[in-house]
């Protein structure tokens, strides 16, 4: 199940675990990333809390936790090479895997059609 937030994150949800990243649109808006800081596995976040930081040459931006949950894995490949987020934001450039506290909360997120309308 692929879901989106109005803060330009995508979630691919399988068995109560969401793989989370930023959308192609967000990656284009941020420009070339030069630094990514990810949360450690085991850390819990509430929906809307600052979970990760991305920086371009010019500015730092926060990536929010899209739903309540606990980090089970983060993608070291993008901290080693932040440009992966620009080249493949909705694939190899994923940020972290989040074990959802309440998987049913995902129902309230945007589907792909609604997200496309948001950024149109």
């Amino acid at each position, binding site marked *: 199940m692929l879901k989106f937030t109005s803060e330009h994150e995508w979630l691919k949800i399988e068995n109560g675990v969401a793989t989370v990243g930023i959308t192609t649109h967000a990656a284009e808006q941020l*420009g070339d990333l030069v630094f990514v800081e990810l949360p450690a596995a085991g850390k819990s976040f509430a929906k809307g809390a600052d979970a990760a930081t991305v920086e371009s*040459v*010019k500015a730092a931006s926060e990536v929010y936790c899209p739903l309540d949950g606990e980090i089970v894995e983060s993608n070291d490949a993008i901290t080693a090479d932040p440009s992966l987020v620009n080249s493949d934001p909705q694939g190899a450039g994923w940020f972290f895997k989040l074990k959802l506290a309440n998987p049913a909360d995902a129902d309230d997120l945007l589907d792909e059609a609604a997200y496309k309308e948001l950024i149109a």
Partner: protein
Amino acid sequence: MDDQSPLLKTPLHALHVSLGARMVPFAGYDMPVQYPLGVLKEHLHTRAHAGLFDVSHMGQVIVRARSGNNADAALALEKLVPVDVAGLGIGRQRYGLFTNDDGGILDDLMITNRGDHLFLVVNAACKEADFAHLEKHLGASCEVTPIRDRSLLALQGPKAEAALASLAPAVASMKFMDVIATPILGVECIISRSGYSGEDGYEISVPDETAEALANALLAIDGVEPIGLGARDSLRLEAGLCLYGNDIDTGTTPVEAALEWAMQKARRIGGARAGGFPGADRILAELDKGASRRRVGLKPEGKAPVRGHTKLYADENGGSELGEVTSGGFGPTVEGPVAMGYLPVGHAANGTTVYAEVRGKYLPVTVTALPFITPTYKR
């Protein structure tokens, strides 16, 4: 600046939009922060090839002695800047600072001796105040004439000479800080061999009505790309150059800002025209004995950029606040974070480690000589 007033546009505004620039408010103008290439690649392109910058928002002003003798204009301007203006040769340019009575910096500027007048370039955000300052203090002896019908383009990078010489052959033999008047596309332009990137290059004062044609002619040359304010900032930061309002302001003195090189011997104690500028007591004393704090280069040891206003501490757990970062970000040529800021002299020696507070962590930062890159000025 009134945030409610409509943004001004430079004569190149339509060109920026047509090139796909992302426009942002800057110093009251709607300016390109980046083009589709993006800040990172625009920065690297400028260091490898040539970048064209619209800096028409900056202020240009002519100071002409009422006596008709340009030496009188130079001596008049020396009352406002701790700079040797009288000793500046015809066709030469020099960096300068307007100081206030407390020794703080009102603005930084470029001063050119154009033979029968002085030509100044000042910062966009300060220009109206600078024009008024000049009129107030120099008006009795000089005509102060803001130039409101000329644009300013900068062409920077290793291919700048070949590109501009294809339109104006005379620029090829210029040296760093030379200034000439020469026709381009049939109109007289004032060209300096200087800039704000750490690269060889030029700044071109061109009549507004010819600015877009000149920009298009330069952009048509292989290797020339339009570059926005984002890369202008990262280029100047790597080059160790101050941004007025960030790294220098009325709360910093020239000596604190490590700008002693901008104050020549003639204006120092024992010099032919020592003192006689606002704040001279404090500035001359600091030139003699040093200031209590100093602007330094800062190299974060990790990968995380350390941005402006980040606090700096002596201890790795955040004890003993020392000062703050005034400019910081990622240096694309350095391939890592770079910054500058102010530290007490006891912590300002190269190699000293201090700690920057970033998102609740204290990251080690090493005091480093500026610039971060090797400039390629054509001396």
